[in-house]
């Protein structure tokens, strides 16, 4: 029964006609599902695009700049150095009158410069044509050409020192689409995507055309990627060649086109594209390319220059004008012809521009200028910004560096050290890391501006900054601080003992000797310092008390411990060269100790100042004391240990002191004018002897440097404060000179420490005076 029922049931079922879903419905369903999936995927991509484009689009490295250069009539120039400066600022020498910003015509009597715009956080002015008239090596006049307007002062824009990169070593100058000349836009479109303004992300006709061309030639000859697709690929996709990536590229292009205006996408593209290589750093975007290849802002690019840049997109390093001019021209001409085909330039214009050659600026490798200074600066910046911020936020960092002084310092150091090595075979070393070293710092005493810093001979070999990181014995370069401490009790005219004596230090006998034979048993304080007499200096130090010297020295901001040993007077403790230079600034700057200033302003991409540092000073000694020390240090130069400076045509007011540490391990010279101070150190890192004194090794380097930087010397003399008086004294007794004194000299004194006695050695007393003295003695 059950079987029968089952059969019936089966029959019943099979008798119902079978219901079939039509194919089109299946297709529709698949389409709906696919479209939904595509929409969802598109939405996902749109979120990604939005996230990427609304955040920072590029990692822009921060740029470090040197200081503005001041030029004024009457100023002396080192013309070769000045020409180098102009080249470094991107000025291109032309034979005719400069027509555009960034051009200069140089003749024997004048520099005609079409200045770049100046734009810093504190100063800005548009570029204009100026003529700097030269007479000898002096600026005779500066005038605004055309207006016959004499200028009292001209400011040159700050020179770029370098950039602070992150892991991506890319240079990029952002430009707005509004800044881009139309011929450049058209050149790029002609080269890459002439139909750009008419498609919706990808170009079906272009794809068909590419397929046809490639099939006809049997290999891939033409691509069909639109500018939007290239952008999608560069921004979001890997460079792999696969169907999936191509599909994503198309979809992204459509999504991006639906989200952003054509001009916006083009602007992003123009800032993004890779356009060449400068050493290890990539040149990205047309802004950077305009500067790199043609030394000008993008707005000033001509039609042919624009076509050259547009031609680079295909293969930047193949078509670079720095690599191969004829290849670059051929590619440029192709772009120009494409522009003509599109109707963007007339046949006449095409004919004319095809005849022109490609004129690019010289290749300027991205050398890291002032590398030790940059390290010093980075150390300060690290306290303010994270490394990622410095590498990506496009900050502008303005510093105090003077690139002409820096160049001169680097050259003087290398020349000086090579000279020493050539003269003394014992100083030569095979291992470059063990070679004779040197360091220079140049400062402006009154502001503390660091004008130049050379921390070693070759940054590539040794990055150790001997100005900021090393600690070395200053030797006699420390003596001025001993004499400063003595000014409370002694005058420059006072006589002190120069007879060798033995001192007991930690239970051991110590007997200082003079460097040169000096048999005078007694010398003036001034002579003791000018001739750098060790015996007299130690005697003076013991008379005034070592603690007194320590107390006064501490005021100058030395961070290394200074202990009250007798050898302190001869500089037998270690100091940082930077700190020593800073301390000497107080003598040059009327007793004011400046804080070394290298970082001035930090501005963001929009020019908004984020950080400022101003001159920071502290009065540590009186102007009168500073003047007396300076005056005695002038004697070092005029008739002391550094008389040889006269051979270097140093004909301006200079004060300075040499220093040589034990066994000639360190040689120093610290010298200054009222406007600038330079410290030179020479030695071996491992403390080997250099077999030469400070005056034989460091001084010539200093003199070489000073003669190369006339533009920072005003020629002013040292200011004598009111509290310093001049008196004529006997050089034998140090007391007021009388008519019988054989060697009277004019000497400076602090107003409160004027000599009041007549020279006892040459003063013949009258009878009345003798009687008066006898009475005086009687009552005593």
């Amino acid at each position: 029964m059950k079987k029968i029922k089952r059969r019936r049931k089966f029959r019943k079922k099979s008798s119902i006609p079978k219901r079939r879903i039509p194919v089109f419905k299946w297709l529709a369903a698949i389409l709906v599902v696919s479209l939904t999936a595509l929409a969802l995927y598109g939405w996902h991509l749109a979120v990604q695009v939005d996230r990427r484009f609304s955040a920072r689009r590029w990692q822009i490295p921060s740029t470090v700049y040197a200081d503005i250069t001041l030029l004024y009539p009457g100023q002396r120039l080192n013309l070769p150095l000045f020409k180098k400066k102009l080249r470094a600022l991107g000025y291109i020498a032309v034979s005719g009158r400069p027509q555009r910003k960034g051009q200069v015509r140089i003749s024997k009597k004048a520099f005609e410069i079409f200045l770049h715009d100046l734009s810093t956080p504190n100063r800005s002015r548009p570029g204009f044509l100026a003529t700097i008239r030269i007479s000898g090596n002096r600026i005779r006049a500066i005038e605004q050409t055309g207006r016959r307007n004499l200028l009292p002062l001209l400011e040159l824009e700050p020179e770029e020192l370098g950039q602070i990169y992150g892991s991506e070593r890319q240079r990029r100058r952002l430009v707005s689409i509004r800044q881009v000349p139309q011929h450049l836009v058209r050149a790029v479109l002609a080269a890459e995507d002439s139909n750009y303004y008419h498609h919706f992300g990808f170009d079906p006709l272009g794809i068909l055309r590419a397929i046809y061309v490639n099939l006809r030639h049997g290999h891939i000859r033409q691509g069909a990627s639109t500018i939007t697709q290239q952008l999608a690929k560069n921004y979001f996709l890997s460079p792999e060649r696969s169907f999936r990536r191509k599909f994503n590229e198309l979809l992204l292009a459509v999504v991006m086109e639906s989200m952003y205006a054509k001009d916006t996408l083009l602007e992003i593209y123009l800032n993004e594209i890779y356009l060449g290589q400068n050493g290890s750093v990539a040149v990205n975007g047309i802004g950077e390319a305009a500067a790199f290849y043609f030394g000008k802002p993008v707005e000033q690019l001509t039609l042919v220059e624009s076509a050259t840049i547009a031609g680079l997109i295909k293969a930047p390093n193949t078509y670079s004008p720095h690599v191969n001019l004829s290849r670059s021209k051929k590619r440029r001409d192709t772009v120009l012809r494409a522009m003509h085909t599109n109707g963007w330039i007339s046949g006449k214009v095409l004919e004319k521009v095809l005849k022109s050659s490609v004129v690019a600026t010289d290749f300027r490798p991205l050398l890291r200028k002032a590398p030790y200074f940059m390290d010093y600066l980075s150390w300060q910046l690290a306290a303010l910004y994270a490394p990622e911020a410095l590498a990506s936020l496009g900050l502008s960092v303005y510093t105090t560096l003077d690139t002409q002084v820096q160049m001169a310092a680097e050259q003087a150091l290398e020349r000086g050290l090579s000279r020493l090595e050539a003269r003394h075979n014992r100083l030569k070393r095979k291992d470059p890391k063990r070679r004779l070293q040197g360091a220079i710092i140049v400062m402006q005493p009154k502001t503390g501006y660091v004008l130049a810093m050379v921390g070693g001979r070759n940054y590539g070999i040794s990055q150790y900054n001997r100005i900021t990181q090393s600690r070395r014995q200053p030797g006699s370069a420390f003596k001025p601080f001993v004499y400063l401490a003595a000014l409370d009790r002694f005058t420059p005219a006072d006589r002190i003992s120069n007879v060798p004596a033995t001192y007991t230090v930690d239970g051991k006998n110590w007997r200082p000797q003079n460097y040169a034979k000096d048999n005078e048993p007694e010398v003036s304080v001034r002579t003791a310092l000018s001739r750098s007499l060790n015996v007299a200096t130690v005697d003076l130090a013991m008379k005034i008390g070592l603690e007194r010297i320590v107390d006064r020295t501490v005021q100058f901001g030395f961070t290394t411990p200074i202990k009250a040993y007798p050898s302190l007077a001869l500089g037998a403790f270690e100091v940082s060269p930077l700190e020593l230079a800073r301390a000497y600034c107080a003598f040059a700057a009327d007793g004011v100790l400046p804080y070394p200033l290298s970082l001035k302003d930090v501005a963001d991409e929009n020019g908004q100042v984020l950080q400022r540092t101003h001159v920071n000073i502290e009065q540590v000694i009186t102007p009168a004391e500073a003047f007396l020390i300076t005056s005695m240090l002038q004697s070092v130069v005029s008739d002391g240990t550094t008389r040889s400076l006269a051979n270097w045509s140093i004909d301006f007011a200079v004060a300075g002191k040499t220093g040589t540490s034990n066994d000639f391990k360190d040689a120093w010279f610290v010298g200054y004018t009222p406007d600038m101070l330079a410290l030179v150190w020479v030695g071996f890192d491992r403390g080997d002897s250099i077999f030469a004194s400070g005056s034989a090794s460091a001084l010539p380097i200093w003199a070489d440097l000073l003669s190369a930087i006339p533009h920072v010397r005003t020629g002013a003399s040292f200011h004598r404060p009111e509290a310093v008086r001049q008196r004529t004294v006997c050089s034998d007794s140090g007391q007021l000179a009388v008519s019988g004194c054989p060697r009277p000299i004019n000497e400076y004194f602090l107003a409160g420490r004027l000599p009041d006695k007549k020279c006892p050695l040459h003063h013949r007393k009258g009878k009345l005076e003798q009687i008066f003295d006898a009475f005086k003695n009687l009552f005593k």
Partner: protein
Amino acid sequence: VAIHKKTFTHFIFSGLTGMLVLACTAKAPIISASEPPHSSRSAIESDAAREHRLTAAEELIEQGKKDLRNNRTDAAMRSFERSIQLHPDGWVPYYYMAEAWMQKGDLPRARQFNRLARTYADQNPYWRGRIRDQAQQLKRQD
């Protein structure tokens, strides 16, 4: 001939004696201990060159004063700093640096620059007066 010879001998003798007396009584030349011989021929800077330099420094001071009036204190200070570069002994930039620090409310720094201005303006009664007034103003603000 004999008389003539005697007269001549007398003449020579008295001449030599006179010269000896003069030499003994004459003052020895005074040498300046502190001014090096080559710095005294400081044809270093001609008057015209100095004039130009001071004009350039003045130009910077004027720029700074303008910025100071427009409350662009930091820009003003940069101009004054540059002016110091061109005229290290000029008291005017120090005076205005003190003004700028006062404007920024940093009185200790203002005092430092006021003191410096006073150091350099020792020969100028007008500016001494202004600098003194500034010092008093600083005292009042304490």
